[in-house]
């Protein structure tokens, strides 16, 4: 067992797809929460294996996409300072702020560096004591433990020149925000497997009960996603709305306790703006008071920046499944991956970007 290729077997995928075909009697809208799942669905053509009545709605689960414009602007301002080494995951570099992006700041001489891990940023701070090293802390609950560990290590090592620009977001509040919208079309969820690897799935039963939606914790390989869809359809067809776990090889009900402890030690829950969606209460993680010295917003005086987002972008409607990306008037014309207007066209995991890349011909865009 290598835990990878086994889950990409075409015959097994067909078998699961046939079972879903046999079970489906009505149209169902199922949202996959995580952008990684969206990517796999488009890459492996999983949606095309499913019966026509089943629509997969692509969820808000791409941290790159939902990072608000004003946070990008803060990053740009800090990264342009001559005393700063600004570190980030590679996929944040092309995300446009109000006027420019991190890659352009780098081209103009800013010291912007891609790191594989937040822990690499801590090493950089150790190696460059005369410079300020800032890490752009973007991500869901999946990424939060690694960022928390970086802050914890920096505190242990008394690194005064290390800080993070914290833009972590939480998934369950966003799911609730979607479900409480009066126009919500989502009837079932594939919950994000790696978010649940960290957090477990104790938070979901109240959501499943309150909105009467099945929630199935699902992995990222084709067989995982197909089995997740099958489990949601089984529930929908029999009128159940329960929380189930497809991704049992990695996800336990309680999640990863040491990782949760690490998050609690360093972060506190804060309100957070989501690009294209707006502010969602209790949906973000910011540094708690004990670690406030590592807060780049405070250190560089950018905490009060406020930026309004362009109103032409309809990504909020796309995220709620109310329109498909190609139904937006700006899609592919005024809004492209090179010049995105908003959330879902920004990152390769965003629904608009995926449609732009794979589904632009009307014949294929029909589903």
């Amino acid at each position, binding site marked *: *067992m290598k835990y990878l290729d086994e*889950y990409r077997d075409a015959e097994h995928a067909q078998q*699961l797809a046939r079972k879903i075909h046999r079970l489906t009697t009505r149209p169902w809208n199922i949202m996959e929460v995580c*952008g990684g799942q969206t990517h796999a669905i488009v890459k492996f053509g999983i949606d095309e294996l499913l019966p026509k009545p089943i629509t997969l709605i692509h969820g808000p689960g791409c941290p790159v996409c939902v990072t608000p414009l004003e946070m990008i602007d803060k990053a740009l301002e800090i990264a342009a300072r001559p005393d700063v080494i600004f570190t980030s995951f590679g996929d944040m570099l092309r995300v446009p702020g109000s006027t420019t992006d991190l890659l352009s700041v780098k081209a103009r001489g800013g010291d912007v560096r891609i790191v*594989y*891990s937040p822990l690499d940023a801590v090493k950089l701070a150790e190696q460059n004591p005369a410079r300020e090293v800032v890490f752009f802390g973007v*991500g*869901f609950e999946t990424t939060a433990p690694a960022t928390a*560990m970086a802050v914890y290590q920096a505190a242990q090592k008394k690194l005064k020149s290390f800080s993070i620009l914290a833009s972590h977001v939480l998934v369950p509040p966003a799911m609730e925000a979607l479900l409480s919208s009066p126009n919500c079309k989502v009837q079932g969820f594939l919950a994000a497997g790696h978010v649940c690897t960290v957090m477990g799935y104790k938070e979901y039963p109240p959501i499943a009960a309150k909105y009467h939606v099945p929630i199935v914790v699902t992995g990222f390989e084709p067989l995982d996603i197909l089995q997740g869809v099958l489990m949601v359809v089984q529930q929908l067809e029999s009128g159940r709305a329960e929380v189930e776990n497809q991704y049992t090889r*990695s996800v336990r009900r309680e999640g990863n306790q040491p990782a949760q402890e690490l998050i609690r030690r360093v972060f506190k829950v804060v309100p957070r703006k989501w690009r294209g969606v707006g502010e969602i209460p209790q949906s973000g993680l910011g540094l708690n008071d004990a670690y406030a010295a590592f807060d780049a917003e405070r250190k560089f005086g950018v905490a009060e920046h406020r930026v309004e987002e362009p109103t032409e972008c309809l990504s909020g409607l796309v995220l709620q499944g109310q329109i498909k990306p190609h139904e937006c008037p700006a899609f592919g014309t005024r809004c492209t991956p090179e010049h995105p207007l908003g959330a879902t066209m920004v990152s390769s995991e965003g629904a608009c970007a995926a449609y732009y890349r794979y589904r632009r011909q009307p014949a294929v865009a029909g589903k």
Partner: protein
Amino acid sequence: MCLAIPGKIESISGDDPMSRMGKINFGGILKEACLACVPEAKIGDYVIVHVGFALSRLDEEEAHKVFDYLKQMEELGELEDKGGGASPSRGKT
């Protein structure tokens, strides 16, 4: 962004639980990862790694379950085919 991939632990270093590191083999490529949050993981185990940080130890028994389910389905499917000859939708497609 939440991309996390399975790899096999080749070696472990560090005595302090909070700074336990491992060399992880991802299909032949070796990379370091922090093992602080998977205290139960041993050399030879597979862990799910995200941005240089191990999030869980993979459970081999659980990992086989989908294949057991598929096998069971296949057996049931054959029974369905034999028993449900009158229904064209039940045939092998």
